[in-house]
C-alpha cells in the first residue's frame, strides 16, 4: 500500500486543489448566507447602467497635481457625493491624475455641478449654535419675537447679522437629515446657516456663522502631532497645527483678538459663549469649530481637544486641502444604459462560449483524450477565476466590466496555451522513446520552466497595463492578470497531477489510439523494423521535404503485435543501457 511515486503525489496534489476550491466555495457560501456576498460577480457600471465621469483636477495656478492632492480631491468628492444622497457611488483615482466618479443612474444637474465645483474652505466666526435637530413646530419662536437687527453689523461677530429669516432658517434646519446641498457656494460676505455633521462620537450641531474672515487659501500648510504639555512633555492628546501666510496671520490675529474677548468674558474654560468659536467651513459645512483660547499673533494656531490620531489626521488633511483650491474639469461624461451593456455582455458571453467550444473541439481534434484534460483544466481555471472574482467583489468591491469579460475570453486561449506547451513536451519525450510515466515527468520538468517564463511575460503585461492604464483598460488588465495566476495554479495543481495519475492508467499508459499519446502516431520508431533493417538511433536531419509520409505511417500501422513487443523490449534495453553508459562517464 505504501507505494509512493508520481502517481500518489499526483493524487495528493489533486486532493489539495479540491480542498482549496472547497474552502473558497465555503467562504463565498458563508458570505452569501450572511447576506454580504453574492454568487453572481458584481457588475461594473458599463454592464449595470449608470454614469461615469472622469474628472481632471486642476490646482489653482495651473501646477501639476501630486498624489497627495489627488487623494484629497477624491476625499472631497466622496464627501460631496455622499452628501448629495447618491448611494453606491464609487470614486477612485486613475493613473495618478484623474478622478473617476461612477454613479448608478443619471445624476441631476445639481449633483453634476456639485461634483465639479472647486473646494471652498473658509473661516467664519460663530454667532449661534444649537442641537442639530430641527425645533419642533409648536416651539418655534413666534413671528413677533424673531430677532430684529437694530444696526448695521460692526464686525464678523456682531449679533446684528442675525435677521428674522436667518433665525427661522436656523430653527427649521435639520442637520440629521440634511437636504441635498445647493451647488452655489454661499456668499462670503453674508452670514451662513449650516451644520456640522454628526460623527461617531459627536452629534450633529447647527450654526449661524458670520461672514468669511480668513480664507482657506491663506493656509500655508497644516500638520498634526501629539500635544505637548506645560513642561514640554508629550501627552496622549492629538493636536492639529495650522500655519497661515502673512495675510492670514494678520487677519487671524484680528479675529482671535475679538473672539478671545468673548472667551475671557464668558469665564474662560468654563464659559460657553458660542461667539468665542470660529468655524472651519469646507464646502459650506462646518468641519470643526474650536474656541479661541488665546490671541494668535504668529499665524500658527493649534487646535486641540478630543482628537484621536485618526480625527486629527482627517482635519489636518482637510485644512491642507483647503489651502489648495482644486477645481475639476470633466474629461469624459458617460451615461451608460444597462440595456446596451447587458446586450453587449450577452453577446460577449455567447461569443465566449462559442470560442470556448471551438477551443474544445480543436483540442479534442489535436490531442484526442488528452483534449479532455485540457477541457477539465479550463473548467478548473474557470471555477478558480469565478470564485476569485466573486470573492473580490465581496471583499474589495471588484466589479466586472465589459473589458473585464473581454479579458476573460482572451484568457481562454492563453490558459490553453500552457497546456499545449506541456503536452507538446510530453510528446517530444515520447518521441525520444521514453515510456509515458517518465515522459510525463521529464516533459513537466522542461515545460514547467517555459510555462513559468512565459506566464511571467503575461503577468508583467497585465501589471503594466493595470498600473499605467486609462479608461476601461484596468478591468481588462485585472482579469488578464487574474487568469494568468489561475492558469499557473491549474497547470501546477491540476493538469500535471492529473497526467501523473493518467499515465498509470491502461488507456494512456499503453498509448491507446485515441489517447493523444499514442507512441506510434508520434513516430516512435521501433529499433527493429523487420526485414533486417535497423533504425538509425537518431534520424539525421535533412533539409528535405518528405513527400510520401503517408506510406511510412501505413507501414507502422501494419506492424504485428509480436513485432511491437519486440520493439518495445529493445527500446527498454537501449534506454537502460544508455543510462548505464551515462553513469560510467
Amino acid at each position, binding site marked *: 500500500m505504501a507505494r509512493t511515486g508520481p502517481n500518489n503525489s499526483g493524487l495528493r496534489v489533486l486532493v489539495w486543489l479540491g480542498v482549496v476550491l472547497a474552502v473558497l466555495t465555503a467562504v463565498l457560501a458563508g458570505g452569501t448566507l450572511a447576506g454580504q456576498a453574492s454568487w453572481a460577480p458584481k457588475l461594473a457600471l458599463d454592464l449595470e447602467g449608470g454614469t461615469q465621469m472622469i474628472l*481632471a483636477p486642476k490646482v489653482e495656478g495651473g501646477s501639476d497635481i501630486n498624489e497627495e492632492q489627488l487623494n484629497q480631491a477624491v476625499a472631497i468628492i466622496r464627501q460631496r457625493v455622499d452628501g448629495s444622497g447618491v448611494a453606491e457611488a464609487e470614486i477612485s483615482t486613475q493613473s495618478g491624475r484623474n478622478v473617476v466618479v461612477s454613479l448608478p443612474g443619471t445624476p441631476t*444637474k445639481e449633483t453634476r455641478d456639485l461634483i465639479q465645483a472647486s473646494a471652498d474652505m473658509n473661516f467664519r466666526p460663530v454667532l449661534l449654535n444649537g442641537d442639530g435637530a430641527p425645533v419642533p413646530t409648536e416651539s418655534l419662536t413666534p413671528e413677533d419675537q424673531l430677532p430684529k437687527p437694530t444696526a448695521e453689523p460692526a464686525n464678523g461677530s456682531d449679533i446684528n447679522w442675525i435677521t428674522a429669516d436667518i433665525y427661522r432658517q436656523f430653527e427649521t434646519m435639520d442637520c440629521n437629515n440634511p437636504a441635498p446641498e445647493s451647488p452655489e457656494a454661499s456668499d462670503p460676505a453674508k452670514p451662513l446657516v449650516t451644520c456640522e455633521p454628526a460623527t461617531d462620537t459627536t452629534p450633529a450641531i447647527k450654526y449661524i456663522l458670520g461672514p468669511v474672515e480668513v480664507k482657506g487659501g491663506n493656509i500655508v500648510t497644516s500638520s498634526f502631532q501629539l500635544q505637548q504639555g506645560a513642561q514640554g512633555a508629550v501627552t496622549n492628546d492629538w493636536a492639529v497645527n495650522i500655519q497661515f501666510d502673512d495675510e492670514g496671520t494678520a487677519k487671524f490675529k484680528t479675529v482671535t483678538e475679538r473672539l478671545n474677548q468673548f472667551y475671557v468674558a464668558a469665564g474662560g474654560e468654563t464659559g460657553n459663549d458660542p461667539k468665542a468659536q470660529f468655524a472651519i467651513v469646507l464646502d459650506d459645512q462646518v468641519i470643526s469649530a474650536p474656541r479661541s483660547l488665546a490671541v494668535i499673533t504668529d499665524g500658527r494656531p493649534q487646535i486641540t481637544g478630543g482628537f484621536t490620531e485618526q480625527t486629527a489626521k482627517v482635519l489636518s488633511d482637510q485644512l491642507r486641502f483647503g489651502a489648495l483650491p482644486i477645481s475639476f474639469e470633466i*474629461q*469624459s461624461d*458617460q451615461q*451608460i*444604459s444597462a440595456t446596451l451593456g447587458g446586450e*453587449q455582455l450577452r*453577446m*460577449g458571453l*455567447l*461569443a*465566449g462560449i*462559442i*470560442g*470556448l467550444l*471551438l477551443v474544445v473541439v480543436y483540442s479534442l481534434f489535436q490531442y484526442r483524450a488528452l483534449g479532455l484534460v485540457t477541457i477539465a483544466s479550463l473548467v478548473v481555471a474557470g471555477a478558480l477565476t469565478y470564485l476569485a472574482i466573486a470573492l473580490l467583489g465581496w471583499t474589495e468591491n471588484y466589479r466586472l466590466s*465589459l*473589458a473585464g*469579460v473581454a479579458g476573460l*475570453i*482572451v484568457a*481562454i*486561449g492563453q490558459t*490553453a496555451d500552457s497546456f*499545449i*506547451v506541456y503536452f*507538446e513536451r510530453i*510528446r*517530444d519525450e515520447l*518521441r525520444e522513446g521514453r515510456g509515458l510515466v517518465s515522459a510525463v515527468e521529464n516533459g513537466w520538468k522542461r515545460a514547467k520552466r517555459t510555462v513559468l517564463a*512565459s506566464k*511571467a*511575460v*503575461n503577468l*508583467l*503585461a497585465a501589471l*503594466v*497595463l493595470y498600473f*499605467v*492604464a*486609462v479608461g*476601461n*483598460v484596468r478591468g481588462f*488588465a485585472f482579469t488578464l492578470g487574474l487568469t494568468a495566476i489561475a492558469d499557473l495554479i491549474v497547470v501546477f495543481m491540476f493538469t500535471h497531477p492529473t497526467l501523473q495519475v493518467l499515465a498509470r492508467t491502461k488507456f494512456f499508459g499503453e498509448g491507446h489510439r485515441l489517447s493523444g499519446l499514442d507512441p506510434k*502516431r*508520434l*513516430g516512435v520508431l521501433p529499433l527493429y523494423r523487420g526485414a533486417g*533493417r535497423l*533504425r*538509425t538511433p537518431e*534520424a*539525421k*536531419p*535533412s*533539409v*528535405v521535404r518528405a513527400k510520401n*509520409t503517408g506510406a*511510412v*505511417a501505413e507501414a507502422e500501422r501494419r506492424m504485428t503485435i509480436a513485432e511491437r513487443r519486440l520493439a518495445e523490449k529493445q527500446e527498454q534495453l537501449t534506454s537502460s543501457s544508455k543510462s548505464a553508459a551515462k553513469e560510467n562517464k
Partner: protein
Amino acid sequence: MSSSFANFGNELYTGKRSYNFVSAKKLWFIIAAVAVVLSILIPVAKGGFNLGIEFRGGSEFTVSNVQSTDSALGEKVVEDVVAGSVPRVANVAGTTMRIQTDKLTDDETLRIKEGLTSAYGVTNNEVTSTFIGPTWGADVTKQALIGLIVFVALAAVLMALYFRTWKMSLSAMAGMLVTMFITAGVYALSDFEVTPSAIIGFLTVLSYSLYDTVVVFDKIRENTADMDASTRRTFGEEVNLAVNQTLVRSINTMMVAILPVGAILFIGAGLLGAGTLRDLSLALFVGILIGTAATIFIAAPMYAWLRQNEPELVKQAKRVEHRRSANNSRTEESAEPAGA
C-alpha cells in the same frame, strides 16, 4: 487529418521535415523591413489613423431598440439643435444607432437626447450619451505610450535575465516591434477605428508576441545548451531545428488563442457593432497572427544571425563542416544502405 498533423509534428521534431526559417533569413528580414516601412508610410500618406471619438473629442449618443434605422432621422435631430454641424450617424448593431457629434454643451446634449428619443420612437433610458473631452484622447495616447515603454523595458530586462543573454532579448524585442508596426499598419490600411479598446488590444498583442517568443526561445536555448560538444549541427541549424520542433506548438497555441478572439470578432461583430469587445478582438486577431509569424520569421533567425559570428560558434561551424565532409567521403567508400 490529425494523424497526418501529428505525423507532421513528428517529422518536424526529428528534423526529417524541415523548413528553412533561419537560412532564408535575409528574405524574411527584407519582407519585414518592407512591411514595416509600408506600415509607417501608409498612415503618413493617408493622413493618419481613423481615430475614434475618444481621440477627437466630442459627444456620442447610442439609441437602442430603434423603430427605424434611418440615419437621416438622427442627422436631422442634431442639425436642428446645432445648426451647421455634421454628425456621424451609423447603425452599429441590429437595432442600435450611434450618433457622433462635435463637442456639445449640457443643454444641447439634453435637447438632442430628447429629439432622438422621439425621432427613433424609444424610451428615455434607451438613449445614452457620452461626452469626451478633447484632452482625453491625448491622455489615453500618452498613457499607452508610457505603458508601451515601461513594458518593453521591463520585458527586455526580464528576458535578458531569464535567457542570460541580451541577444535573445534583443531578438525577441525586434520580433515584437515588427509585430507592433505591422499591426498598426494593418489598422491604418484598413481604416479600422482606433479606440482605447483597440489600444488595449494592441498592448496585449505585444504581450502575446513576447509570450510566443519565450516559448520558442526556451526550446532554442535547450537545443543549443551544449553547442561546443556538438558537431552534428551548426548553431543556425540548431536554431532552425528548434523552431521546427516548436512549430506544431506555435500553430496550436495560435489556434487556441485566436479561436475565442475570432469568435468575438466574427460572431460578435454583426451583433455587437462597434464597441469594447469588437475593437479589442480586432486588434488581437491581427496581432496574434502577425506575432506568431514574427517569432518564427524574425525573432529566431535574428538570434541566429546575431550569434553566428561569435568566435566559438564559428569554430564549431567549422568542426561541423569538417565532420560532414569526412562523413560524405566515408559514405561513398562503404556505400552504406540508405535509411528508410
